[in-house]
């Protein structure tokens, strides 16, 4: 029986593990793939204080090492259900814990269009797949900060980048939008939706609600992220499925806490996820006292 089981090994979960271990709690961290979460999709991290020149995977590995050196156990398993008690049921095994911290994060929202899962040339991560589009024509779909950053990143690789957004105005911060506007390789198609994906095995283009069709080698989808928690239906969530909790990270079920991007919050960053991890661990420690 563990004192605290943490589901998810991103910055929230890893920080929670560090705090839980420093308080002497028997701690298990459950991660479905590899520790790091979205940090693993990030090239350079430029806004984590004091670490001016670090990549996402480096930061992830260093957080993981700190948690493990302090004695946190890590098991690689995808949790599918939490039963009272608490019994965490995974695809591989079952785990018992007195308190649970959910730190499962988010996943990219999909287009929901025919062919999305089948066609090559559709991506949700420019830093992962951008290199395949050297001197090719690509589009980024979305209007937030991530979309604009992806478009800027891709403009350094591709021959041409379209930025497609359903509204006339981009939601991204003004300075990056300005950078994008002055970029010769970027063409904006605003006030229009992607309505159809074209191609047989490989994406060859898209159709837009404006009636226009665009020939493409690659489409990068950046229309937001959704909470990743299939087993959270018993918890109070907001309209989008994020687990409702304030800064104390306390959920509607005593003994279950939430940390990081999967919690209702304004700003989703590595540093705010880490902050949640500390708060959730503290709340769990108090609950166990």
């Amino acid at each position, binding site marked *: 029986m563990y004192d605290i089981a943490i589901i998810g090994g991103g910055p929230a979960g890893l920080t929670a593990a560090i705090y839980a271990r420093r308080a002497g709690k028997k701690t298990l961290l459950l*991660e*479905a*793939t*590899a520790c*790091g979460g979205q940090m*693993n*999709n*990030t*090239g350079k991290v430029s806004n984590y204080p004091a670490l001016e020149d670090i*990549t*996402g*995977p*480096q930061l*992830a*590995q260093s957080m993981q090492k700190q948690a493990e050196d302090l004695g946190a156990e890590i098991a*690689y*398993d995808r949790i599918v259900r939490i039963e009272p008690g608490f019994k965490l049921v995974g695809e*591989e095994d079952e785990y018992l814990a007195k308190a649970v911290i959910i730190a499962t994060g988010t996943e990219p929202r999909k287009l929901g269009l025919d062919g999305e899962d089948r066609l*090559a*040339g559709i*991506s949700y*991560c420019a*830093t*992962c*797949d*951008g*290199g*395949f589009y050297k001197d090719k024509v690509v589009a980024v779909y979305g209007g937030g900060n991530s979309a604009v950053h992806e478009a800027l990143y891709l403009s350094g690789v591709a021959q041409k980048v379209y930025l497609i957004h359903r509204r006339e105005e981009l939601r991204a911060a003004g300075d990056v939008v300005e950078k994008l506007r002055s970029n010769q390789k970027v063409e904006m198609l605003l006030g229009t939706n992607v309505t159809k994906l074209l191609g047989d*095995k*490989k994406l060859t283009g898209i159709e837009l609600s404006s009636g226009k069709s665009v020939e493409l080698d*690659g489409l990068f989808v950046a229309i937001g992220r959704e909470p990743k928690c299939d087993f959270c239906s018993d918890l109070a969530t907001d309209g989008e499925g994020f687990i409702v909790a304030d800064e104390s990270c306390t959920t509607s079920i005593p003994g279950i806490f939430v940390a990081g991007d999967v919690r209702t919050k304004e700003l989703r960053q590595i540093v705010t996820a880490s902050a949640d991890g500390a708060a959730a661990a503290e709340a769990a420690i108090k609950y166990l006292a």
Partner: protein
Amino acid sequence: MKIIEGTADNFEAEVLDAKVPVLVDFNATWCPPCQALHPILEELADETDECKIVTVDVDAEEPLAGAYGVSSIPCLVFFRDGTEYDRRVGLQPKKRLMKILGVK
């Protein structure tokens, strides 16, 4: 076991003619999750001799990556007796890789 660097020249000998299951990791230096996957593959390589691990740099080996339809990385392609029998895109835990490779 040592991780082998795969190229168009040695692919047949190292992968297709191998007597054990082979995991081919298509990756690139610019791909952050590929860097995150690397220590997992190294750990796996240290623990078993029942399979082979071959890494292919998609920039240096563009035609090879193209021949296997790789357009999203890290892309893990599993071969047995010269035939692809499974494929996973993105980070994977070591346990799942071992299960797919049939190693203990």
